Structure formats: structure tokens, C-alpha cells
């Protein structure tokens, strides 16, 4: 789902309540495939404020805002409030609760994660629980792709080809142009996306030989760069990735159909 660097960042970070809420909003906004602008429009809020909520830079949101976000993201109340506790005795937020089993649904673990565990803004969960959570959302057509790919008998998606140097250089230049067009410094962009200024610099100068598609998409989203040269640059890679996923899905569907036919005979 994401690179190791990102997970390390999540683990080491000392989260405030607002940041946790923001991370949950970002997480489910991406699952719903919405941009900040689209979500802000749905709940009648300015994109700036939404962005501040997502980064946890405003005072904790009011009940109405929470409910509006829940409605717009089509999630449950619990989803956005996950991973938040208050320990009455010490009057402290954000402590792991005294009895972990009291918290329904989410598995909480120490920072030494056993193999097979993944870190998400909504908590620490086992691979099994992660799959379960996605299966529960099966009815939603947008999530079918992810679910099919999680099946145990699913063939591996073909690995991405390494991009050539010319593409890397052009992408870096397009990113720099877009960023400067938006009047942001590298640090400014890094604050808005899950990466560091040093990594952005590496991409812009073409020193990173194979920047991941996801990070490029994040940067594009953070810069609100739909329709820009940068978006056009990463579009073919995205299309290639989609085609690879589609191929696996078609293969699965074909196999299912064949098995169904075999059972019938």
C-alpha cells in the first residue's frame, strides 16, 4: 500500500488528536477516490479549511463537521474516530488505553510490529483484519478492484518497468515548474505531502532514478495539478499500471467463469 519510509514516519510521529483525525480523513478520502476540492464541495466547506483539518492544524473539529465528513465520505462514525483515546486517570490524550480489548475492532500493537502487520492512520492491524475491513466494504463498486487483488489465488500484478532517464528528467522539471507556479518552496510542498524536501529535490533534479507512481500522484494532488504538464507526464505510467491491474482482474474473472462452468457440468 505504501513505501516503508512512509510507515516509519507514521510510527515515529507523535500524533496529536487533530492530526489523527486528519489522517483518518485523508485515508478515507483517498479510498473514496476524492480530491480535497471535491470533498470540500460536498460538505460546503472551503478547501483551505479542509486542508487544515487534514493536517491537524486547526482546533479539533466540531461535531457537525465530523458528521458532515462521515456523510460525504460514506463511512461509519467509527472510521473517522478510530485510534483516539483518553485516559481519565492521568488526564492525557493519545495514550494506549489500559485494556486493549476494550477498543472494539482495531488491533493495537506496540511499535515493534510483528511480521504481517501493517500500519495505517487508523491503527495497527493484522493483514487478516485489513482484508476483513475491505471485504465489509464489498458492495461499493469502487473498492472491487482492491478486493479482487487481495484474493489468495490472485496472480501477481506485473512489476512496473523502470522509467528511462529522459522521462525522469522531464518529470522532475515539470514538477519544479508546477511547484514554482504554485509559489511553494520544497519544504512547503513536503509539508503538504507524505514526503521530505530532500526527496522532492532528488525528484526535481532527476537524481531519483525511479520515483514511485504513488508519491508522484500525492505530489500532483498536493499541488492541485490536474491538467498540468506534470499530470500529463505521469499519466502514461498511471495508464500502464491500470492496464496491468486490469489484466490480472480479467484473468481472475476468466478463471472464475471457467470454474463455474466446470461445476455446472
Amino acid at each position, binding site marked *: 500500500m505504501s513505501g516503508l519510509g512512509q510507515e516509519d514516519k507514521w510510527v515515529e510521529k507523535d500524533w496529536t*488528536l*487533530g492530526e489523527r*483525525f486528519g489522517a483518518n480523513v485523508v485515508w478515507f478520502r483517498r479510498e473514496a477516490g476524492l480530491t480535497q476540492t471535491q470533498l470540500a*464541495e*460536498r*460538505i*460546503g466547506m472551503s478547501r483551505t479549511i479542509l486542508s487544515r483539518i487534514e493536517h491537524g492544524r486547526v*482546533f*479539533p*473539529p*466540531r*461535531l*457537525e463537521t*465530523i*458528521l*458532515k465528513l*462521515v*456523510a*460525504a465520505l460514506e463511512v*461509519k*462514525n*467509527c472510521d473517522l*474516530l*478510530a485510534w*483516539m*483515546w*483518553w*485516559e*481519565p486517570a492521568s*488526564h492525557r*490524550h493519545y495514550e494506549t*488505553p489500559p485494556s486493549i480489548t*476494550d*477498543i*472494539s475492532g482495531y488491533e493495537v500493537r506496540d511499535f515493534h510490529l510483528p511480521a504481517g502487520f501493517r500500519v495505517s492512520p487508523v491503527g495497527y492491524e493484522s493483514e487478516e483484519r485489513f482484508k476483513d475491513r475491505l471485504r465489509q466494504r464489498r458492495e461499493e463498486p469502487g473498492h472491487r478492484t482492491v478486493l479482487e487483488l487481495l484474493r489468495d489465488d490472485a496472480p501477481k500484478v506485473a512489476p512496473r518497468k523502470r522509467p528511462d532517464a529522459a522521462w525522469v528528467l522531464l518529470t522532475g522539471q515539470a514538477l519544479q515548474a508546477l511547484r514554482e507556479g504554485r509559489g511553494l518552496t520544497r519544504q512547503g510542498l513536503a509539508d503538504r505531502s507524505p514526503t521530505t524536501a530532500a526527496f522532492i529535490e532528488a525528484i526535481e533534479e532527476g537524481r531519483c532514478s525511479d520515483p514511485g507512481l504513488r508519491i508522484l500522484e500525492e505530489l500532483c494532488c498536493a499541488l492541485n495539478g490536474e491538467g498540468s504538464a506534470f499530470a500529463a507526464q505521469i499519466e502514461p505510467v498511471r495508464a500502464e499500471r491500470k492496464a496491468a491491474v486490469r489484466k490480472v482482474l480479467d484473468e481472475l474473472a476468466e478463471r472464475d467463469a471457467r470454474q463455474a462452468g466446470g461445476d455446472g457440468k
Partner: protein
Amino acid sequence: MARPKEAQAAEAARRFGINVLECRGRAGFSQQKTADRAGIHRTEVSLIEGGKRVPRLDTIVKLAGAVGVDPCALLEGIAWELSPPTEEAK
């Protein structure tokens, strides 16, 4: 047709207050004890239970911790009805 915003907010606050009251009753705490455990003032607990105040996220999490429930238990049965975008465009 979605209800007006103010009415929805008032309704949400009222339901939230009832949920707090129920959970507090189940834990067997007084308003004062709940307020102490949550680190907020007793009058605020009283206002919230009466639905006269719309709580913020930090208050929700504090109250939930104080009465020993998951924060989303306090939001049970509360939902927001978004007005459809077509209506706004008109």
C-alpha cells in the same frame, strides 16, 4: 429535501447529549465525577447532556474516555444529511 443546517446541528447535539447521559448512567457516574475524569467543567457536561452545546472532537474523546466507552459509541445513531449538490446549483 434536507433539513436546514441549524435544525440538523441542534438535533445532532440533542442525540449526542442523550448518548452521553445513557453511557454515564451505565457507568454509574455523577455529572461531577464524569467532569473530573474528563478534565472539563461540570456545567459543560450539563450543557452537552441537555443538547445545548455542540461538542468538539477533543471533548467527545474526553467524555468517551471518562465514561469508559469507545468515542464512536457516543455518536451512535447520529447522522448528517447532506443536501444534494443539484439543489445548491439551482
